[in-house]
């Protein structure tokens, strides 16, 4: 893909993300009905769940790029996988913070260690945070690329475990909204959720492409500096 098309893709994604996020915000705050049980605080759902799913998507994308690197040996996938982990970690922080705010208003506590879903997400987050330590403890080159790729690929195993934990465990206070019978919410709530999720995924894609472009330029500037030195 040329630099021109990459830049235009980033601009198009940014516009789409802005529109979808604003639309989702409007729908969540003005259109979607209040939950009978939790009241207005349930609307945190429209930001917390899309952010969490986006974090999973970023880690999944990082694993896919890591697999491509190991399979094809193309160096460019290393930077792409690294950028996706970077994005996933940012969305992971947001998941933990928005989740804590929701927990405080719903359960009266900021965190509950007895909740497997929360603990597993924290483990996933810490696992990917350690990715940066591994990456920067090695010198740039094929060894670092391969080690980072293997690590990113291992981490993705935690995603289905984190997802299934809540469905396999009993007696949890963390709500299960998506069951085998479909989403347990009204149509308007589900539509609002879908728009918010689309907005968050597009936002992540826009940030990913901008970050990746920045990292690529950085790399080229470094190469140029070495050539001119």
């Amino acid at each position: 893909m040329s630099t021109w098309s990459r830049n235009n893709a980033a601009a198009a994604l940014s516009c789409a993300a802005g529109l979808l996020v604003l639309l989702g915000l409007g729908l969540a705050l003005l259109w979607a009905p209040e939950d009978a049980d939790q009241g207005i605080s349930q609307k945190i759902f429209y930001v917390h769940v899309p952010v969490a799913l986006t974090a999973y998507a970023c880690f999944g994308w990082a694993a896919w790029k890591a697999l491509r690197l190991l399979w094809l040996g193309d160096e460019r996938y290393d930077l792409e996988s690294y950028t996706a982990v970077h994005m996933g970690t940012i969305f992971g922080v947001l998941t933990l913070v928005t989740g804590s705010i929701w927990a405080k208003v719903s359960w009266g506590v900021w965190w509950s260690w007895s909740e497997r879903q929360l603990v597993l997400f924290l483990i996933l987050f810490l696992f990917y945070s350690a990715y940066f330590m591994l990456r920067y403890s090695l010198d740039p080159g094929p060894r670092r690329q391969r080690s980072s790729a293997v690590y990113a690929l291992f981490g993705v195993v935690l995603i289905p475990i984190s997802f299934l934990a809540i469905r396999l465990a009993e007696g949890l206070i963390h709500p299960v909204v998506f069951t085998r019978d479909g989403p347990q919410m009204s149509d308007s709530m589900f539509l609002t959720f879908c728009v918010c999720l689309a907005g968050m995924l597009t936002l992540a894609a826009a940030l990913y492409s901008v970050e990746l472009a920045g990292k690529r330029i950085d790399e080229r500037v470094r190469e140029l500096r070495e050539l001119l030195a």
Partner: protein
Amino acid sequence: MSTGEKYLAAAYLVVFAAVLTYLVLIALKVSRLERDLAELAELARQRADG
């Protein structure tokens, strides 16, 4: 403002603040790259002249 509304506002503001912070960091990175490129262009010009 009810307690629920305060927490709701906090959750949305956290995400908004994160995106805003990210934009500031990207802006700083772009200015650094601009400086680096100007420096490299100057180096290349000196090479061409010398």
